[in-house]
């Protein structure tokens, strides 16, 4: 070996040792307790090793509100719309406000900020394509549990509870939900069997002069879990809610026995929907004239807590539904 090569080999050995020492030091700084217990959870990105009792959870995309609803307290989260946050109970609003906002939307997560929070678990529900772009960077920061958008809300709640060690609260909420569904089915069996319903919606982003028939969202729960007769898109077709209908089609709602529409917590039509109830066409609908247009409060449809509040509102309006003439 020439002197030059010897010097090169010695330099490489010193650098390697320095890298090993640096890596060891870095591990110790990031994880804190090297003996932390771990569990395995199944998610759409495989079987993930997560801390048995995660203490510092970051939520991305649609996991934020269901995780908070389960009693979780994320240290970092991607922002939810103001209108969604306002619908949360006060204690959950406080939890949301205490967390660090990682990004205005789920597709722009600030990785540096996320890493600085030193999370021990990351929960994410975003489009698959978006997750693929950030998967490795998230996993380099903390164990990451990912659910695709096609994960149904109940499965999502169960998965989040499992990963976040919140299964006790999850079991309570699930039992409460099932009890409410059963009670509505028993109390309003005749109405459920004999009444055709339609749920209508209008969002803040809806085009002027348009509304939609909501076959996704809260009324999906009334249809699929309670068994009420709400319209549904044919298999394989896009949801009805994705088609904006011009106001002149409000008259087509005449064929339904009863209509449900969105109201706020005080029972007033939501701000985006208010233009619909002000139209002459709405006022001329048989269901509206006979008191069979029911304002229902839907605080969310992707966690048991918010769905239970929806079921409470649904039960209260079904109690006021006049008999069919």
């Amino acid at each position, binding site marked *: 070996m020439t002197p030059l090569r010897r010097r090169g080999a010695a330099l490489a050995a010193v650098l390697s040792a320095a890298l090993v020492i640096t890596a060891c030091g870095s591990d110790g700084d990031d994880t804190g307790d090297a003996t932390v217990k771990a569990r395995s959870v199944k998610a759409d990105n495989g079987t993930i090793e997560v801390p048995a009792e995660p203490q510092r959870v970051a939520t991305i995309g649609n996991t934020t509100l269901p995780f908070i609803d389960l009693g979780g307290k994320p240290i970092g989260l991607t922002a939810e*719309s103001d209108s969604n946050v306002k619908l949360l109970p006060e204690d959950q609003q406080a939890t949301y406000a205490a967390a660090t906002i990682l990004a*205005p*939307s789920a597709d722009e997560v600030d990785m540096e900020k996320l890493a600085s929070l030193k999370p021990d678990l990351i929960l994410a529900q975003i489009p698959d394509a978006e997750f693929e772009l950030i998967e490795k960077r998230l996993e380099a920061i903390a164990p990451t549990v990912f659910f695709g958008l096609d994960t149904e809300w109940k499965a999502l709640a169960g998965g989040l509870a499992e990963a976040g060690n919140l299964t006790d609260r999850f079991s309570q909420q699930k039992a409460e939900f099932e009890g409410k569904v059963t009670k509505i089915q028993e109390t309003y069996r005749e109405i459920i069997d004999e009444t055709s319903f339609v749920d209508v919606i209008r969002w*803040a*982003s809806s*085009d*002027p*002069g*348009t509304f939609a028939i909501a076959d996704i969202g809260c009324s999906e729960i009334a249809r699929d879990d309670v068994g009420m007769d709400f319209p549904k898109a044919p298999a394989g077709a896009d949801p009805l809610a994705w*088609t*904006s*209908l*011009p*106001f*002149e*089609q*409000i*008259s*087509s709602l*005449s064929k339904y026995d009863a209509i449900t529409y969105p109201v706020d917590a005080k029972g007033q039509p939501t*701000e985006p929907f208010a*233009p619909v109830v002000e*139209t*002459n*066409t709405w006022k*001329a*609908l048989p269901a509206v004239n006979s008191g069979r247009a029911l304002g229902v409060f839907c605080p969310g449809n992707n966690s048991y807590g918010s769905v239970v509040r929806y079921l409470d509102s649904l039960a209260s309006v079904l109690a006021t539904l006049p008999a069919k003439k």
Partner: protein
Amino acid sequence: MTTLALRQDGPGTVTVPGPRRRLLGLVVALVVLVVLLVLSVMIGSTSIPPSAVWDALFHSSADIDQFAIRDYRLPRAIVGLVVGVALGLSGALIQALTRNPLADPGILGVHAGASFAVTVAVGLLGVRDVQGYMWFAFAGALVVTLMVLALGSTRQGSSPVVMVLAGVCVGAVLGGAREALQLTNPDAFDAMRSWNAGSIAGRPLEVVWPILPFVAVALVLAFVVAGPLNAMALGDELAVAQGVRLARTRVLAIVALSLLAGGATAIAGPIVFVGLMVPHVARWIVGPHQGWIFAYSILLAPSLVLVSDILGRVVIRPGEIPVGVVTAFVGAPVLIALVRRRKASGL
């Protein structure tokens, strides 16, 4: 029938109909427009029998179908009429003023000003309904056009070329600012989707009445400057020799076109193709006489808007396509076909 042979830019000639034939064409265009107005009320995303349409207009009752006619279709037809008139005439004015067949009101920053103002209203001030942000659009269009007029005026007077360059520059700056605002405020972006596409759906008559006086004033101004613009088409020196006051004519034309384009944009959002295409067609029919071009544009442009809107209502029933999208689909092939069949129209 008298015809006039005019030498064009190219080697060929174009025959231009005489006054009687022009008038006859104008009557035909008027009849077509009236028919389209009727069809606009008759045809929609729901099937309503003609008898119900007739009753809704002449034997009013509380029937639910009648509300659909009176509250949505009739206002929509009127909105289409006003927007079309304003877009067509403003397009004719800007092409005459700049002597540029590719010019439309957007080239002076009208759309950029309106869009920026609406973005500020929606994104920063929380304005959400058409009645609220239409005034921002109108004010934005007017302010930016006046700014472009000021930037485009040199010591030697106002130059169409400098004005167009100023309009493109101001439009680019405002476009960038608008994009930045929308990217940092997704709610604003969502709320503006429909407006950006250009739509006359869901606009009540309440958005038309306040704009109507401005459109009326602009109509008068347009015909006042029609003669001077004819002279200016021969060149500034010849126009001055004929007694035309160039600066006054340009200012009046810009005021008129900004009122028209600003009003139309405020109501319906930026519908870009109508103001570009219709004056071309008018010019092919009547030749380079601004008064006739203006008259034809006033009738043909609302026809294009209405036919596009009717198509947009029926092609994806029960949903709809915004008129701004359909005008491009309908208008572009027609314009290309005309360009291929006829020689470029002179200005």
